[in-house]
């Protein structure tokens, strides 16, 4: 095993970002990930952009219900409520 094979390439790293953020990498892979990030501005930028993407999704409201859809559901609720 050579030193090189032990290192993560940038192209490999971008595939591991979700596992990394979910804490799902093995300790060894996590170490390799952290070591790479510490020395690679580009991959740090990429990871930051994924974090921003997640944050922006988090600011979206659940899609508004169309008024007709809401009315139909509330009507179904009232039918149910008045059923004996």
């Amino acid at each position, binding site marked *: 095993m050579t030193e090189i094979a032990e290192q993560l390439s940038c192209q490999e790293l971008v595939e591991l970002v979700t596992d990394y953020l979910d804490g799902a990498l093995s300790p060894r892979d996590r170490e390799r990930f952290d070591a790479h990030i510490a020395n690679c501005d580009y991959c740090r930028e990429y990871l930051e*952009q994924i974090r921003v993407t997640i944050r*922006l999704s988090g600011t979206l409201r659940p899609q508004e219900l169309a008024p007709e859809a809401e009315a139909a559901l509330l009507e*179904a609720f009232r039918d149910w409520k008045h059923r004996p």
Partner: protein
Amino acid sequence: MEHALGLEEMRLVEGLRNRDEQAFEQLIRMYQSALVRVALMYVSTRAVAEDVVQESWLAVLNGIDRFEGRSSLKTWIFRIVANRAKTRGQREARSRPFSSLEPEASVDPDHFVDGQWSAPPASWPEEQLLAAETLRVVGNAIESLPPNQRAVITLRDIQGWSAEEVRNALELSETNERVLLHRARTKVRTALEAYLMEDA
């Protein structure tokens, strides 16, 4: 009993048991659009998905007195929808194949040479990030994802659920859930990049 329920969910369960319309209204506002996205994992049209969700709400109402709180209320509701949509999808005899888990590159392979960035990500203009138009790009990118990816990112990143909650509600394996989420997020990032770098 009801050990899986938080205070807010206990209040909602009580509300439904008392046939309180406000509790129902709150639930549909929170979950209806996400539930339709979950149904669309299994059925082919929005009309059928909405139909499945409406039926499922009735099943929720009819079952609420027997709901024991072994799972959270939201997990219970989402599982009812997922199961009914699955059944309906099979009946339609055109249940969607689960999105393939074939390898799919997160970043265009042309952006690398020998595994290193040749076209590295440029930093994004901070001041543009929270603009309404940027959020619209995110919303549209999510809307146009394949159904399974869209459902997972909706629950994880819009609704803010944990990985475990999503796996339980959708009965996905840990690996599948993560692959779907990963693909969804990377596509949304790519859409954002295309939009933010347009005039750069």
